[in-house]
């Protein structure tokens, strides 16, 4: 099988889907690697480096597409590239299937199998091929660097002989992969970093990166982020309003704002309004990582850097990963290589016991199935939900804090209820006892015993409630031993003149005695074992 990577045709795209390193790994899986001449040049990988790694350099794109059984590339294929697809060929690339109906139709018509890298499900097993995350990571880092490039001051605060420099204040909106990368970069450069996300459960991650999480004074049942595959979902209008109010409050203080808020398959939400931009200090920088989807700030111009009238720079580049082509290519090529590993399972031959490794597009596999958008002349997008779902811990239901008055009222009510139930019980009990006493002809001798009985039950209930849980087994053993008090009955009876009575009583004595000694001894044994550390 041959796996080939053409030169990216999209203008300004510097990345490449195969690096010399990844090619070596792919060859280990048993693939022959092809690369179009000059494909890696802009990412810093010359043809010579590829040849050293054992990759065949092909002169033209046409020849490569023709020769390769599997084509791996970065950008969503152009119409010209789609035309080159052929029956049974596999294409691994970003594909943007949600907005690329024509692309899928073309691939379907050609009979090619397309694996869209952005469709890799977000489950633990598939993290190693999650190209969106690796690209987002680069974008987050680059966003801070780009902001620093356009920001006229230090990130970190300094006190120097030439005066005091205040630290820069950075706000990161959206704590996804890109957001977290931006937070990490920003804090390590020394800026005071704030971060916001609609998913309160990421607060911990944000804080672990050294930033401060901006909490809203807003109570809302948030949809479990994990239920949407770890992505943010649309929030309610009230929530959005509370969020904007908070941003408006923060805007004048912030030097750098990096917005990364994206909702899958939707226009980016507007989070940084015109008036916020206007309230910012001159020289401040906004980096809008959502520019591709319309931007979190409406002033953003896609792929351009603009300066507003009040001196705020707004960066709307969409090619951050491409701007760091060497790094991005390394990571992306590794993602592709992991995808190939999953596509090349080891199969054990039952008879010979030999292990063979062959390309196998397994549509039963959650990850591969999820990422495949066309397969054997069928469009297989959107995929069914994955079988394994990452379930995050459910947010604890917060018990509302009670005010002291409420607490007191509650206690009083509980006390009343307790009194009531106790009085009722007492009344019923007393009535029962009196009722027994009122039965005509009830002999006083019985009543005397009856009193003893009732009082003993009462004492029993009082005493047993205090027994420690851990001592329940010894309690049973002890009660078992003392319930052998029945021996007294047998002892009284044994002296009878009737042989039968004597016999039965003797048996009774014997059994009860077994119980007395067994019960007490076993209790002692148990109790002796309980030790303090």
């Amino acid at each position, binding site marked *: 099988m041959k796996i080939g990577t053409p030169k990216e045709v999209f203008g300004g795209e510097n990345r490449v889907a195969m690096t010399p390193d990844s090619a070596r790994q792919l060859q280990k899986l048993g693939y022959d690697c092809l690369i179009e001449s000059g494909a890696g040049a802009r990412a810093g990988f010359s043809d010579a480096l590829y040849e050293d790694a054992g990759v065949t350099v092909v002169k033209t794109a046409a020849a490569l597409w023709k020769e390769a059984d599997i084509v791996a590339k970065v950008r969503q294929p152009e119409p010209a590239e789609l035309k080159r697809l052929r029956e049974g060929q596999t294409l691994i690339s970003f594909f943007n299937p949600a907005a690329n109906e024509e692309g899928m139709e073309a691939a379907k018509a050609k009979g090619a199998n397309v694996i869209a890298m952005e469709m890799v499900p977000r489950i633990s097993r598939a993290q190693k091929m999650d190209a969106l995350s690796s690209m987002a990571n680069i974008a987050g880092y680059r966003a801070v660097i780009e902001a620093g490039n356009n920001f006229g001051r230090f990130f970190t605060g300094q006190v120097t002989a030439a005066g005091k420099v205040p630290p820069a204040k950075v706000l990161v909106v959206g704590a996804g992969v890109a957001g977290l990368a931006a937070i990490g970069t920003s804090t390590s450069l020394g800026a005071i970093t704030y971060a916001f996300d609609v998913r309160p459960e990421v607060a911990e991650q944000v804080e672990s990166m050294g930033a401060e999480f901006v909490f809203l004074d807003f109570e809302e049942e948030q949809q479990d982020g994990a239920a949407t595959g770890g992505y943010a979902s649309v929030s309610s209008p009230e929530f959005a309003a509370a969020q904007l109010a908070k941003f408006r409050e923060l805007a004048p203080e912030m030097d750098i704002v990096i917005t990364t808020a994206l909702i899958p398959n939707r226009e980016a939400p507007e989070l940084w309004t015109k008036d916020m931009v206007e309230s910012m200090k001159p020289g401040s920088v906004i980096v809008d990582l959502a520019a591709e989807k319309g931007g979190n700030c409406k002033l953003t111009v896609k792929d351009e850097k603009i300066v507003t009238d009040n001196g705020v720079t707004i960066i709307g580049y969409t090619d951050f990963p491409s701007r760091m082509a060497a790094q991005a290519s390394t990571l992306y090529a590794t993602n592709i290589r992991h995808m190939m590993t999953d596509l090349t399972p080891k199969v054990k031959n039952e008879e010979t016991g030999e292990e063979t490794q062959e390309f196998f597009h397994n549509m039963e596999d959650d990850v591969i199935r999820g990422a495949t958008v066309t397969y054997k002349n069928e469009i297989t997008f959107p995929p069914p939900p994955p079988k394994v779902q990452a379930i995050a811990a459910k947010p604890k239901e917060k018990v509302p804090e009670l005010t002291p008055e409420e607490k007191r009222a509650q206690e009083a009510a509980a006390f009343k209820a307790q009194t009531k139930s106790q009085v009722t019980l007492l009344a019923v009990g007393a009535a029962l006892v009196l009722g027994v006493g009122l039965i005509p002809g009830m002999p006083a001798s019985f009543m005397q015993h009856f009193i003893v009985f009732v009082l003993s039950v009462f004492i029993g209930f009082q005493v047993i409630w205090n027994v420690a*849980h851990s001592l329940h087994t010894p309690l049973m053993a002890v009660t078992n031993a003392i*319930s052998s008090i029945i021996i007294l009955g047998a002892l009284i009876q044994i002296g009878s003149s009737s042989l039968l009575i004597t016999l039965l009583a003797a048996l009774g004595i014997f059994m009860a005695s077994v119980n007395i000694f067994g019960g007490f001894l076993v209790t002692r044994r148990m109790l002796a074992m309980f030790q303090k550390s």
Partner: protein
Amino acid sequence: MENAFTIAAYVVAGILFILSLGGLSGQESAKRAVWYGIVGMAIAVVATLVGPGSGLGVVSIILIALGAAVGYQLATKVEMTQMPELVAIMHSLVGLAAVFVGFNADIMINYIGNMYDAEGLVMGAVQADGITAIGLPKELYDGLSSFGQLIAKKSSVEIGILRVELVLGIWIGAVTFTGSVIAYAKLAGRDSKLPVEIDTSAKQLPGGHMLNAAAAGLSIIFAIMYLGGSGSWTLILLTLLALFIGYHLIMGIGGADMPVVVSMLNSYSGWAAAAIGFSLGNDLLIVVGALVGSSGAILSYIMCKAMNRSFVSVILGGFGGASGGEQMAVEGEQVAIDAEGVAAALEEADSIVIIPGYGMAVAQAQQNVAELTRRLRAKGKTVRFAIHPVAGRLPGHMNVLLAEAKVPYDIVLEMDEINDDFPDTDVAIVIGSNDIVNPAAQDDPNSPIAGMPVLECWKAKQVFVSKRGQGTGYSGIENPLFFKENTRMFYGDAKASLDTLLGKIT
């Protein structure tokens, strides 16, 4: 004759018994408390022997000594894991003794009745005051044993009450007897010493509870006939019916509910003793019977509450048909892990909670658990135990096992004490427990155990489950915990698994 000394001794014994139960509120005071119980019992027996029970005193002492020998053997030989069985089988002895004593009372009543007849008198006839019995002529009266004298001086109303009491005593005693024997067999499982093998799952004869109800109804009819003077044969039939009820009732209860059953039988044996106490006019029997009876009742109540089930539904057997809808299907897969993985996770963890269950007892793994605890504690890690109220087959079973293995009791905590700490726990290790850590009890309203309080171990960062295989365990309920993302299954016999684990942790 019950003289003043005997009664005084009974008062002392009674107080000692109360103190003995009350002392069980703490581990240290419990050690003293058990001595109170022993002394109380000694005083009671000695006082009876020198007082009303002096007849054939030598025989009595020999019998007590014999019983002591057997009891000593039982108590010293028993494994701590077999404690539930031992307690169950001991209850059966009390039940049987109560039946015998009850029958003796009946025989004695008939005997005295015959004496009255022979004298041409009517038993229970009263004097002019309408209360005091006329009684037998002096020389005959003096010839009777003390128990005979007691009955001979009763009026007819008193004899009627006496009969009610002995019917109750015999009935409860008989139910306790067969019930305990069956409970023993179910708890012991294959190790049962009984000649017949008894299925540990809930089994009932065709007819189910109707059969029990019919037997109970018949018992009442026989009891009324007996009180109406139909003779002792009704009493014997009644006993047979009670024996059947005890057998059939407990047969219908699954092994998982045995903690409730054992404490219920404990309660019954107390009530039987109290009933017999009434018929013998012995206050100490009444006092102790009432103490034991209420203790067992409270234990049963605690157990039921811990399982969120009503007492009635446990006694009527099986997991009730309360669930209306489909149970939630469990998604995901059980991921296995080997000893190295567990060891590595334990090395990194700071706080560890171990949740033992019946599986630990079955595998006799408590020593290994204790050794693991010692080693982890030596490394400065916080190790604690979380005990669910119904873990094991007897209330407090796990505590006893851990104590046997010398796990200090102050790191062994109850469910309520530890449940809030799970989110801050690095590793939770579940050893042979299942239902008590089942999240379905909280998440799935249709689960048979919905609403039962459970140990929320899945909130820990990582959960290891030591389990024999993929089965559903005693109650047959699927456990979603095993399928959670942070759960790893550590398959194998608990003892063997822990052995390999101990090899990895030094």
